């Protein structure tokens, strides 16, 4: 049965979720970084300075930062294109992320994919995102199977949106993970819209979290605007998985502030709902206010944080534009492992002009 997290009470008693001052500052930094990145990338896209597409996760940073912050570096994360903030929280290098957005050789996919269709398996154990959601859910079961089989105390986390819960693979993966008792945490970033389709046309039950009962696993629904509430639920689920307790489901509710992709003005989202969320349910400003109210940050701290984030973005942007495009002659390389392309340094003679 879905419970509106008993952690709410715990959060009252222990508002900081057992986190150190340094950790709380780190979470604020991640939130600010993800928000700034999202806003600047959209601006560059609208100015025609960014090729390809964008999939904004704005308004959902509480979910992304909250769940990813509960993972260890060697835990694996299987996200979607909406979840770049979770990948940034896991530790992806902003410079290489931006090189990816500009189709450059230093991007994580070496220009073989774009935008947030990104991943860094070797370094941060994140899945290289695909569009066919929730296509990463079954492979998350596979990674978790390997951990369980080898007796490793590692966890796999899958993220998808509310839209993907209508797909058969979501149900297959939840079922299989529970049948085998796999160390998985399933996260649903319920931002209330599957592209333009609202929750009430997606599923006939009040919450996604209560579906967990049918698969024999715990399910909780948390407030995506409250990063510590999300984090607390994620930490509990991760610990359960790590200690052999099997999978859990977390539904984190927020609102998608921007369209499905950069081209979508999202006029189907009621204006009042959006305004209310931006005003009162902003996970970034809410967390900042929380830390301010406990005297853990002040104007000076926030200013320095915002400057740091801006500097990192500018550094990443300059890095991306200076990184060469992949060499056209390498188009067929890297399909087969034995051609060695991915184990060697790629050609850097592609120039910086497309």
């Amino acid at each position, binding site marked *: 049965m879905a419970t509106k997290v008993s952690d709410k009470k715990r959060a009252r008693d222990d508002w900081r979720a057992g986190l150190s001052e340094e950790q709380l500052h780190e979470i604020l930094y991640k939130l600010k970084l993800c928000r700034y990145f999202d806003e600047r990338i959209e601006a560059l896209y609208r100015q025609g300075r960014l090729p390809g597409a964008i999939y904004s996760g704005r308004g959902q940073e509480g979910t992304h930062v909250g769940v990813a912050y509960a993972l260890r570096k060697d835990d694996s994360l299987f996200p979607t294109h909406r979840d770049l903030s979770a990948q940034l929280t896991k530790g992806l290098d902003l410079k290489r992320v931006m090189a990816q957005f500009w189709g450059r050789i230093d991007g994580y996919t070496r220009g073989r994919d774009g935008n947030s269709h990104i991943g860094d398996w070797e370094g941060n154990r994140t899945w290289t995102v695909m569009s066919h959601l929730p296509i990463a859910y079954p492979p998350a079961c596979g990674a978790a199977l390997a951990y369980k089989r080898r007796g490793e105390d590692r966890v796999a986390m899958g993220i998808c949106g509310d839209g993907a819960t209508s797909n058969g693979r979501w149900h297959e993966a939840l079922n299989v993970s529970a049948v085998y008792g796999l160390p998985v945490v399933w996260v649903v970033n319920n931002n209330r819209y599957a592209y333009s389709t609202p929750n009430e046309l997606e599923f006939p039950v009040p919450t996604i979290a209560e579906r967990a009962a049918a698969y024999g696993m715990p399910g909780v629904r948390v407030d995506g605007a409250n990063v510590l509430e999300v984090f607390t639920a994620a930490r509990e689920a991760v610990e359960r998985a790590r200690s052999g307790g099997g999978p859990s489901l977390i539904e984190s509710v927020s609102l998608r502030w921007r369209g499905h992709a950069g081209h979508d003005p999202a006029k189907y989202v009621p204006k009042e709902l959006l305004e209310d969320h931006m005003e009162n349910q902003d996970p970034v400003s809410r967390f900042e206010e929380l830390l301010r109210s406990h005297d853990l940050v002040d104007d000076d701290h926030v200013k320095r944080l915002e400057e740091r984030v801006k500097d990192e973005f500018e550094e990443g942007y300059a890095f991306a534009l200076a990184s060469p495009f992949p060499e056209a002659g390498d188009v067929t390389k890297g399909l*087969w492992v034995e051609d060695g392309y991915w184990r060697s340094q790629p050609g850097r003679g592609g120039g910086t002009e497309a």
Partner: protein
Amino acid sequence: MSAKVEAAAAGHGAEPRGKRSENGEATYLIAIAEALWEEMERDERVFLLGEDIGVYGGAFKVTEGFIERFGPERVMDTPIAEETIVGLALGAAMEGMRPVAEFQYADFMSSGFDMITTALGRYHYRSGVPAPVVLRGPSGGGVRASSFHSFNPEPWFAHAPGLKVICPAFPTDAKGLLKSAIRDDNPCVFLEHKWIYRRIKEVVPEDPDFLVPIGEADVKREGTDVSVIAYGMMVHHALEAAEALARDGIDVEVVDLRSIVPLDTETILSSVAKTSRAVVLYESHRFLGVGAEVTAVIAQEGFESLDAPIVRIAPPNVPVPFSPTLEDAYLPQVADIEDAIRELSAW
């Protein structure tokens, strides 16, 4: 019959080699079981997953006896969830395991199609992360199994980048190629022709490191007049036709592709250079089937060798029908092959 062979026949954890016939011959099915067994003995990372492969031993009993020897963790029964079977294999492979997933029929690979073609096939090119997964299943017709148990899906997977596609016709090739596939760092779709399973036997190498390289065709019968390029069950039909034609003085060469991806164009072209006449024979649908590519390769790169038009023999683009008259009309028959070769050799 030795005690070992008796135990194996009962399927209680004895190796499949014990199921060979008295003279040491293995069926294609037993050769496949031997390959799986030997690779599981060799490499702890190799495990099997699929529907009813454990206690039941698989729909065709390929993995009979495996669960007793290797246990349920390495011979994993799965729920009926093909997308997730492939996804389990992919995720485990990304973490360094060597999964071999069985489909009860290759027809049901379409139930995992997105995971096979979108995720598994494209993953390494986009990420550099190897996905050493083998997907195996019985394909093909000729056993009166109708539309959903007779399909040849190899063109689908050959068309999807990043998957090696293997279609052996003989027990020795099946064993050597499956072992190569399990050791390969790329995803492989291994299609076992169910008509061949218990029909074709031969003495199969026992060396646990015997391998057949993926991507190399094999000339199964040397000849000088006409080349027949085929794979799977059609290789056996071509060989039968060749024997009949030899009595009339027509010397047919039979090239067995063995692998569809990578396609061994060199062996195809050298055979056509020798005979100057090509019959492209295949069991997947004629329209955009495997033979369409083979034909294009010969037309484009072997044009100067040809003394006659290339002939394609393949089923029409309809579902595999059930009734014997219909299925026989659908599948290329030995007589069809003979007629086509006679006509072509008269050019």
